[in-house]
Each structure stands twice: as structure tokens, then as C-alpha cells.
């Protein structure tokens, strides 16, 4: 007997954890968290009062909103995920992460990417694809750093000392694989210059790929890694076993399989072929139960510990996070029901929904994880439970104000847009009426955001004090742990096929990949490979050179953050905007500009609706022609010159991607653009505009706006919709 024990003793291997890396990511989470939340509060105030745009290109909503979303998702939540994964993975696998160096490359590479985003987005370098706005050199860096992370993770998996992998690890695997696939495919683009590219996909295809990505960025960046964190940190914090192992299995596989299909619910009533919309909607409903499987396993683990939830701030954060996760994943399927979507889409309701997820789930989970992890990492106690409690209430109240104001604003606006009286007239024909109505809600939301930010600042003070007061000497050396090698823990063959699979990590990873690739292929491939996916229309022509220049300005300024270019097939939209959009009209749009919100009106049919002078006045000061407008002023468009010479290169790239430009057009692009500008100037000069404005960006932008949606002509014969 003692001999057996001794031989086992000698087999034990010693290892330690690279907690220094975890500490680095934890600190980065706090730093970028404040930045992301501050930017969110800033852009919230920009909608409440346009003056917050500061008349400066670098601070307009169109450029700061993408910075806020990217900072929140990739900088704040991203670093939190990495901190949590680097903390839990080695502990669950009984091994050190495979490479300290790869961990450092991951950390510093990621922080550099964030800095690059923070500089390039305000400067107007953007691809305009939501949550994927970064230009191509940064995209490549993201892909490389992510692969480094993935390689390090899978090597760690290989050298584990625990035969079977825990449910948290399943979710990490799905995250790493899927984000790589999503990010690479959605960012396929052809460079024009160092910081400008055109999407490989055009129009409807681009929209489909983007929202397959956009929706699954929510799924596989904001959800699956956090479910992994939930399965580790809640159980550790509450010391209770997971509620149901078989629920873990069924909700994991159904979640990752179903989630990937649901992207097209972002494109309901759009020009996307209807079968794709129908499939996206159906899978969104089917997604409800798999999502709630995670919620149940999280909440029911807390059974028998509810008295502690009342007292311990960490558990408060976790319980609230999981509850909001449940709420948001119920609201999501609800919003993808077509008749609900018809009202909610393009409104602030969607923004409220997103923040129920990002603040309610990601922020609350992150706070809980940090409060649990930081004292453990620095071998000390949390400095102040009271401060953590104040943060909890501040953030919760702020979030409730946020969600409720956005519900009110969104539903109000959605109903006002579609109100038609008995004489067939729009009840609110002036779009700006529907904006002015909800401005009080924008103030409430901004105030809610301030409370959320305030709470996070308390977290930083609390954790700073915690770290500062930690005993120095105990943090000198890494703690040593002992475990038997993998060979000592045989594959469990009695626990059923899934138990066996948990021991076969390569097969597990391959099956995860299969689960996410099936839906992707079925939804994307017909669009990308078939020539018949989009009906052609010979009347639709590529943009003329000056319009290309104008379109690039439209993209640069982030106009899509407030304006859609998509008239939905509804009577109220036809009355307000004109002819319903068709897929054929977008075939030269790289990238597509459908947008996801109508803070301002749709622009699909704005071409020819106003004269040049109207646009000139409007861009200089929107309130001069539309009293009550909340759009920023764009004075720099009246100073910056159009880069006419760059147009040859741009047309060349667009031609290579399939736009039928002739060689003459490409070679003479700068000259053609100047001639076009002269025509616009003829009218502007009659209105008193100085001759020297001819080479300014405003003229190119007017050229683009006047072209929008005009190719099919003005009349909307209903039959042409078919």
C-alpha cells in the first residue's frame, strides 16, 4: 500500500501559473474600461445636445461612436476575457500556459491594436463595417495576435494534466475558433492605400457578411467567453457545484450551432433575399432556450446561497449579470419577430437592447470577476466591500434608466414613423419632429451612463487600494502546485459518449468548428457564389469619379452611424422616403451603407430631393434649414480639398472588383471629377458661393448625395418591386 502511494508521489509534477500575465490583463481591463465608458457617455451627450460634437472632425458622433463600440467590445470586454481565460484555463487544466512569450505578444500586441484604433478612428480611417471599422493593416494585426492567443491556448490544452475538459474550456474553444473565422471573412478587403480599402463584397452580399459577423461578434465575443467565465467564477465564488452537467452539454452545442444562423435578423425587411431573412428569424426564436440554458445553470448554481447574494457584492454582480443575460436573450428573439422588428429596427430600442447585454451582462460579470480575481492574484482582501456595493447600485440604477429611456425613445420614434392618417398622409412628415420628441430620453440615457461610469471609477479606486495595500513579500515568488501527469488520468469510458469527447480535445475542437461552419456556409455561400442571388438591373451604373470621392467622405465621417440607406417595403416608408429599395441598386456599393439606425432620416432616395444649395447650407449648419436638427456642423468639409489625383487608383481597384469602368474613365478620373464639380458649382455660385470652393470636399459629398438612389428613376411602379 505505502509503495503504491510512494510511486504515485514520485510521479507528481510541479508547476506554477503565469499570474503576472493575468495581472497585466486585469489592469488593462480597468484602464480601457474607463476609456470605453467615458466615450459612451460622451457620445450619449452628443445626441442630447449637438454642441458636444465641438465642431471638430475628431469629436463628431460619426467618428466617436465607432471608437466607443470598438473600445467597449475589444478593449474593455476583450481584456476582461483574456484576464479571465488566462486565470481560469491553467487552473482548470492543471498546467502553466504553454508560452510566457506568446502571452506577452498577445498582451502588448492587443494593447497596440487598441492604441492604433484610438488614433485611426477619430482621424477618419474606417471601413464603416460595424464593430469591424478598423482599416486593413490593423485587421492583419488583430488576426495575427488572435492566432498567437489561439496557438498558446491549444498548446496549453495539449500539455494539460486534467484528462477531461470542463464546460468553461468548451466555451473558450468555441470562442477562439469562431472569432478567427468571423473576423477574417468579414474583413476581406482590397487596399487602395495604406489606410484605405474597399470591401471584397458589395451591397447585399456585404450586408449579409457584415451582419453574420456583427451578430456573432455579440455571440462569440460578448457571450460565449463570458459563459465560460460564468462557469468558472460563479462556482468558485459561491462554492457550489454546477447545477446540471447535462444542461451544460445540450445548451453548449445548441447555442453555438444555432447562434451562427441568426445574423440575418439584422436585415429583416431589407433587400436581402427573403429566404435568408426567414431562416435568420426562425433560428433567432430557436436560440431562446439554448441561451436560457446558460442562465439557468448560472442562477440555479446559486440555490442555497441566496442569503449570501444579499451580502456579498461579488455574488450580487454575478446574479444580476446572469439575470440581465436572461433578459437580453429573451428580448433578442422578441425583436427578431418581423412585426416587432418593423417597429424596433433603426430605433433606439435596439441600442437599449444591446446595452442590457453589454452593461447588464458584460460589465456586471467583469466587475464580479475582477472583485474575485484581483484579491486572489495579489494575495490579499478586497479593500472595501461598501464601495463595491455602491458601485453595484450606481451601475444597476444607471442601467435601468438607460434601458427604460431607450425603450420609450425607440417605441415612440418607431410608432411616429409609421403613423398614417385616414387621408393617406404621414402624421409626422417632418423627420425632425420624431427626433425632437425623444431628446428628453437622450438626456435620461446620458445620465444613466454617467452612473454606470461613476460605478466603474469606484471599482478602480477600490482595486487600486487593494493592490496597493497587498503584502509585497508574498507576491515575490510564484506559488508551486503539484499534479499527476495526464497519463495518470485515463479516459472516462463509463460516463457516456460526451464524457469521452471531453477527453479528446482535438476532436472536440473540430466538432465545434463543424457546428459553427454549417450555418455559415448555408447562409453565406449562395450569396457569395451564385450569380443569380441578386437580380441584375441594367439601369444601375457605377458611381462617377466625383461621386466615388464623395462616397469615401460619407464613409469617413461615419454618416452610417445615424443614417440608413435602405427603404423598407412598408407604406409609411414609401410615403416618407420614396421607392422601396431593391437589391440590384447596391451592386457597386463597397462597403454597403445600409446602416443600423435612423437618428436622422434614411438617405436612400435623397438624390434630387433637395437642390445643391440646400445641401451646402445643411452641411455647414443643419439647423439653418432644419430647425431642431441634432446633426453636427461639418465646417471642415468646406476647407479640406478633394484628392482628385487619388481617384485613378480608386477607380482601378473598383474596376478590378467588377465595376465596369472604361479605361478612359479610369485614366481621366481626376479630370472628369473636376468637370462634374464645375457643374455643381454653377448652381452654387448662383446662390452666392465663392468660385474657389470648387475643389472642396463639400462639392464631392453633394455629388454623391445627389446621386443616391436615382438610377431607377423617380416613379415607383408597384409592379417593379416584384
Amino acid at each position: 500500500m505505502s509503495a503504491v502511494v510512494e510511486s504515485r508521489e514520485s510521479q507528481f509534477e510541479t508547476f506554477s501559473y503565469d499570474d503576472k500575465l493575468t495581472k497585466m490583463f486585469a489592469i488593462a481591463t480597468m484602464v480601457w474600461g474607463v476609456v470605453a465608458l467615458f466615450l459612451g457617455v460622451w457620445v450619449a451627450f452628443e445626441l442630447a445636445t449637438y454642441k458636444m460634437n465641438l465642431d471638430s472632425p475628431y469629436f463628431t458622433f460619426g467618428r466617436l461612436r465607432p471608437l466607443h463600440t470598438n473600445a467597449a467590445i475589444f478593449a474593455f470586454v476583450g481584456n476582461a476575457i483574456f484576464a479571465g481565460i488566462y486565470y481560469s484555463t491553467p487552473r482548470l487544466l492543471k498546467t502553466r500556459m504553454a508560452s510566457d512569450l506568446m502571452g506577452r505578444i498577445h498582451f502588448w500586441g492587443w494593447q497596440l491594436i487598441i492604441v492604433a484604433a484610438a488614433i485611426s478612428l477619430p482621424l477618419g480611417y474606417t471601413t464603416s463595417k460595424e464593430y469591424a471599422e478598423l482599416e486593413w493593416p490593423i485587421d492583419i494585426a488583430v488576426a495575427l495576435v488572435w492566432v498567437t492567443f489561439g496557438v498558446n491556448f491549444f498548446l496549453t490544452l495539449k500539455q494539460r494534466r486534467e484528462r477531461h475538459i470542463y464546460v468553461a474550456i468548451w466555451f473558450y474553444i468555441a470562442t477562439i475558433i469562431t472569432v478567427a473565422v468571423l473576423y477574417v471573412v468579414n474583413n476581406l478587403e482590397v487596399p487602395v492605400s495604406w489606410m484605405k480599402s474597399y470591401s471584397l463584397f458589395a451591397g447585399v452580399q456585404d450586408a449579409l457578411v457584415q451582419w453574420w459577423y456583427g451578430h456573432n461578434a455579440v455571440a462569440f465575443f460578448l457571450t460565449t467567453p463570458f459563459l465560460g467565465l460564468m462557469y468558472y467564477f460563479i462556482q468558485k465564488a459561491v462554492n457550489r457545484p454546477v447545477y446540471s452537467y447535462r444542461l451544460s452539454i445540450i445548451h453548449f452545442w445548441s447555442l453555438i450551432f444555432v447562434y451562427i444562423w441568426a445574423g440575418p435578423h439584422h436585415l429583416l425587411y431589407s433587400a436581402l433575399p427573403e429566404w435568408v431573412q426567414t431562416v435568420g428569424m426562425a433560428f433567432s426564436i430557436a436560440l431562446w432556450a439554448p441561451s436560457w440554458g446558460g442562465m439557468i445553470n448560472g442562477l440555479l448554481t446559486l440555490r442555497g446561497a441566496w442569503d449570501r447574494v444579499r451580502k456579498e457584492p461579488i455574488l450580487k454582480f454575478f446574479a444580476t449579470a446572469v439575470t440581465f443575460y436572461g433578459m437580453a436573450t429573451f428580448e433578442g428573439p422578441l425583436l427578431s419577430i418581423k412585426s416587432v422588428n418593423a417597429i424596433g429596427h433603426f430605433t433606439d430600442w435596439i441600442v437599449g437592447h444591446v446595452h442590457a447585454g453589454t452593461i447588464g451582462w458584460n460589465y456586471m460579470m467583469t466587475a464580479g470577476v475582477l472583485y474575485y480575481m484581483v484579491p486572489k492574484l495579489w494575495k490579499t482582501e478586497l479593500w472595501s466591500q461598501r464601495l463595491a456595493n455602491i458601485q453595484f447600485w450606481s451601475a444597476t440604477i444607471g442601467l435601468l434608466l438607460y434601458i427604460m429611456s431607450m425603450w420609450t425613445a425607440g417605441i415612440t420614434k418607431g410608432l411616429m414613423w409609421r403613423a398614417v392618417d385616414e387621408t393617406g398622409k404621414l402624421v409626422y412628415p417632418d423627420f425632425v419632429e420624431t427626433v425632437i420628441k425623444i431628446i428628453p430620453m437622450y438626456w435620461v440615457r446620458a445620465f444613466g451612463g454617467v452612473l454606470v461610469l461613476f460605478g466603474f471609477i469606484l471599482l478602480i479606486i477600490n482595486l487600486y487600494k487593494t493592490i496597493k495595500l497587498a503584502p509585497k513579500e508574498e507576491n515575490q515568488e510564484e506559488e508551486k502546485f503539484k499534479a499527476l501527469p495526464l497519463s495518470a488520468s485515463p479516459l472516462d469510458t463509463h460516463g457516456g459518449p460526451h464524457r469521452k469527447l471531453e477527453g479528446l480535445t482535438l476532436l472536440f475542437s473540430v466538432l465545434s468548428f463543424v457546428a459553427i461552419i454549417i450555418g455559415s456556409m448555408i447562409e453565406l455561400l449562395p450569396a457569395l457564389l451564385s450569380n443569380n442571388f441578386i437580380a441584375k438591373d441594367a439601369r444601375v451604373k457605377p458611381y462617377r469619379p466625383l461621386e466615388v470621392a464623395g462616397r469615401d467622405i460619407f464613409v469617413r465621417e461615419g454618416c452610417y452611424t445615424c443614417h440608413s440607406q435602405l427603404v423598407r417595403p412598408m407604406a409609411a416608408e414609401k410615403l416618407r422616403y420614396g421607392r422601396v429599395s431593391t437589391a440590384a441598386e447596391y451592386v457597386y456599393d463597397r462597403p454597403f451603407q445600409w446602416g443600423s439606425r435612423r437618428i436622422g432620416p434614411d438617405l436612400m432616395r435623397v438624390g434630387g430631393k433637395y437642390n445643391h444649395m440646400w445641401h451646402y447650407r445643411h452641411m455647414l449648419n443643419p439647423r439653418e434649414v432644419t430647425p431642431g436638427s441634432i446633426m453636427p456642423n461639418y465646417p471642415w468639409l468646406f476647407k479640406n480639398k478633394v484628392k482628385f489625383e487619388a481617384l485613378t487608383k480608386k477607380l482601378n481597384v473598383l474596376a478590378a472588383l467588377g465595376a465596369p469602368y472604361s479605361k478612359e474613365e479610369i485614366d481621366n478620373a481626376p479630370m472628369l471629377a473636376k468637370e462634374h464639380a464645375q457643374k455643381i458649382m454653377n448652381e452654387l455660385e448662383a446662390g452666392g458661393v465663392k468660385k474657389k470652393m470648387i475643389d472642396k470636399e463639400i462639392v464631392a459629398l453633394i455629388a454623391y448625395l445627389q446621386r443616391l438612389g436615382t438610377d431607377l428613376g423617380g416613379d415607383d411602379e408597384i409592379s417593379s418591386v416584384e
Partner: protein
Amino acid sequence: MNHQKTDADNIILNKTEEELLLDHNYDGIEEFDYPLPSWWSVTFIGGVVFAIFYIYFYNFAGAPSLKEEYIQEMSKVNAILEEQRKLTGNFDIEEYNAWAASTDADEMANTVFQDNCASCHLEGGTGDIGPNLTDSYWLNLKEVSHGTLYGFIRVGNEDNGMPAWQDLLTKEELFAAVTFLMKLKNTNQPGKEPQGEKVLK
């Protein structure tokens, strides 16, 4: 199994839980194997069944597409608009005079102009984005009368940015706009340079 029971100090509530506890232990985390809650299973199966039925119904069983629904909705609205256009289509000077004699006609004229026209023609109608309405030059009219103004405002001229107002304004509101314009014309206030032809009548 190499289950190290010792390093898990999880709280186990009762006998049932003890029986449901699995032989899993990861960094001290254990797992129960509670059966799936029945309401959850029903939701799960219900969601899948719904999805299959929904896809079948809309893609194969001939349910109306969004476009068909739109065409139906739009043909109803178009019928109403046609009716309305018939009502506003004919300008009857006697009907106009009867309206103009009403007490709030002048006030309505001012309101309609400021709400709808002033953003392009300025408050006093002296022109900015749109032409000066106080001079004797007109871009779209050869004769300026109640009837011709009414007719033009109704349909507009898309080429130079004047919207068609027939589906946006009621007949009274169109009358109101005409009243305001008739008062402005030939008052020759300083403003935008004249555009179009001089109209004598």
C-alpha cells in the same frame, strides 16, 4: 478515477444533491447532474418546432412574402391617396374664396408658410435655397394666379428641388400657402437675385 475529493469543499444541501453529484472535479469545481427543467425542455423543443414550421410556411407553403404584403398595403394606401388627390385636384375659386373669408385664414396662411416653406424661401419669402417669392420673376409659372400657384404647389418640380405637396398638405393648407404667396408677390423686398422669367400677369 483520480478524483481528489479533498480539494473540493463545495456546499451540498441535502441527500438528493449528494446523489446527483458527479465524479467531476476541476480546480475544486464539482457538477450536479440535475435533470433538465421540464419547462426548459418544452421551450427548447417548441423553438425548434416553430423554426421548422416557420421556414416551411414562408418558403414552401406559399405564405405571402414581405413584398406581396407591401404591394397589398400600398394598393390600399394608393386608393386613398387617389381619392384625396381628386378632392385637392380641382381648384375652385369659389371654394377658395369661401375659405379665405373664414376668420383664421390669415393666421393659417402664415403658419403653413413658416412650417413648410420658410426653410428654403426664408421667413419673409425673400429666397435662399429656393427663389425669392417677393419679386416678379418666376421659374415655373407663366402666369401667377390663385389657380396656377395652387396647381404648382401641389405637384412641385423635382428637378429644381421643389417638392410635391399634394400628399403632405390638406386642401385648406394648400389654400393657405396660396394666400400667403399672393400677398408676397411683387412686393419686391431685397433678397435673393431674381430667377426665371419676368411674369407680367
